[in-house]
């Protein structure tokens, strides 16, 4: 119950932000929401299915490059570019997942990292699309020929709508019979197998879906910044996404709102918004903002861990 309240409160807060924010602040909050969407997609497999994917930035970056490359080739409309970006990232997740999911634990982390780095170096070598320097977009995507996404306000609400939609879908899937297998295999894979269920295909489908959602967040990010670069795919960013998910789960549990599917995904949204906005805020105060950010993170994990142990 508290988990659902937290999630709805976050969405409500994001909906009223434009009332009191200037364009600059609004763009920061929109950016945070885009990362929240990526964090939800990561948490769907990490928290939901227990798969620590260390290549999520690559999936996001493929979505971003999808929009960028299509635009360079003359396809500007979001109704084509966004589904294409999702399909490309989802397909990459399916293909790499088919191999990665044969492994477990640390091996899975390392192999997803390796595939992520592969995508990173491919992006670097795309000399036709800016190579190392990245690719500037001529403009934001159009929607059915209309230039609606140009307005920061519209873009903010479109992003919020997609974030809510993706979070809702992920929650529904995790609650479905399919999701039950994912959640059970995360806790006790041996038992699930003994019941006649091979979790492999379930995990693969989930990983593909997560890839598509991450691709969507990348498509939005490319539009927000009107720029894509190999840095979008770097392993630093994959790590940041994991920090968002883990810190968010800790924070949600410290608030007593960590239970259930809503608690999981709500934690991811909270974590992404918290990390992004804190980074931005601290960077304003000092260029050595990491000195403050690091200890805060440690403190949060300690608090969440203590609370989790008592529960």
């Amino acid at each position, binding site marked *: 119950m508290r988990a659902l309240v937290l999630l709805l409160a976050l969405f409500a807060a994001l909906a009223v932000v434009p009332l009191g924010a200037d364009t600059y602040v609004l763009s920061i909050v929109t950016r945070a929401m885009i990362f929240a969407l990526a964090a939800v997609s990561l948490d769907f497999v990490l928290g939901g299915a227990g798969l620590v994917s260390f290549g999520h930035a690559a999936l996001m970056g493929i979505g971003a490059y999808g929009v960028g490359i299509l635009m360079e080739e003359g396809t500007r409309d979001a109704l084509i570019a966004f589904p294409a970006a999702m399909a490309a990232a989802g397909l990459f997740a399916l293909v790499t997942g088919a191999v990665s999911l044969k492994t477990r634990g640390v091996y899975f982390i390392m192999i997803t990292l390796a595939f992520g780095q592969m995508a990173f170096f491919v992006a670097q070598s795309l000399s036709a699309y800016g190579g190392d320097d990245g690719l500037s977009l001529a403009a934001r995507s159009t929607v059915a020929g209309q230039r609606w996404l140009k307005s920061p306000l519209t873009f903010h609400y479109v992003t919020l709508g997609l974030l809510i939609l993706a979070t809702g879908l992920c929650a529904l*899937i995790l609650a479905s019979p399919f999701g039950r*297998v994912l959640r059970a295999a995360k806790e*006790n894979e041996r038992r699930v197998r003994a019941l006649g269920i091979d979790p492999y295909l379930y995990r693969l489908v989930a990983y593909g879906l997560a890839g598509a959602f991450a691709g969507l967040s990348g498509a939005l990010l490319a539009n927000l910044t009107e720029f894509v670069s190999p840095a979008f795919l770097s392993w630093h960013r994959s790590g940041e996404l994991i920090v968002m998910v883990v810190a968010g789960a800790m924070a949600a549990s410290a608030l007593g709102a960590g239970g259930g599917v809503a608690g999981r995904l709500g934690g991811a949204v909270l974590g992404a918004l918290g990390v992004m906005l804190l980074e931005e805020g601290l960077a304003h105060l000092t260029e050595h903002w990491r000195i403050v950010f690091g200890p805060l993170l440690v403190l949060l994990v300690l608090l969440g861990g203590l609370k989790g142990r008592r529960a």
Partner: protein
Amino acid sequence: MSALLQVRGLRKSYGALAVTDGVDLTVAAGEIHALIGPNGAGKTTLISLIAGEVRADAGTIHLADTDLTLAPVHRRARAGLARSFQITSTIPAFSVRENVVLALQGAGGPSFRLWPAPRAERARAERAQALLARVGLEGRGDHPAAALSHGEKRALELAMALAAEPRVLLLDEPMAGTGPEEGRAMVDLIAGLKTACGILLVEHDMDAVFRLADRVSVLVAGRIIASGAPAQVRADPAVRAAYLGDEPGGTP
């Protein structure tokens, strides 16, 4: 009596140590075949070999006419081999009922429905409730599995194994760690399952074994040294020496 589960010449070695050394074993429909033996005799390894968690070095495993020798765990389960674990194995964070619902899902074949399926879910919840009633957990459906007592967890395991309507049930020490009362309830429960499927029962509690079993096999150092009716096995001098000791340990 036609054998439902047929194990022939099963071997498994870890290095120089033969844990399973040419085991032949059958379980017929409606039969309880008890497997006893001292600690370290390889009973749990044998169960794992039959369930498919450990791959045998040699030998064959058939269920009815299906050759399961090379089948992975989940395919053996789908073919009708269900098991309980010596160390209780449930999904602790799930409710008791959801554990059984998951087992029903496994029995029902792949469930790649990404959206909620209220009708199928209701039907599964009802069947789960019936299974819980069968093992005496009807009032505990909404509790988290982690909150059950040890004996209740064993009963839950049994309900999960039964969800698949298995043809052969592998029970690895279902009485282990239960109190006297829970143990008696478990014996009655297992006796009641006999008609539904064949059971291979690994158990240390001799009272339970001699009350339940139609046949008893004695496993010592990976070999079956005696097999037959309970009274016959109890009288076997080799068994007395290797396992029961001089005391008439199995007298009910």
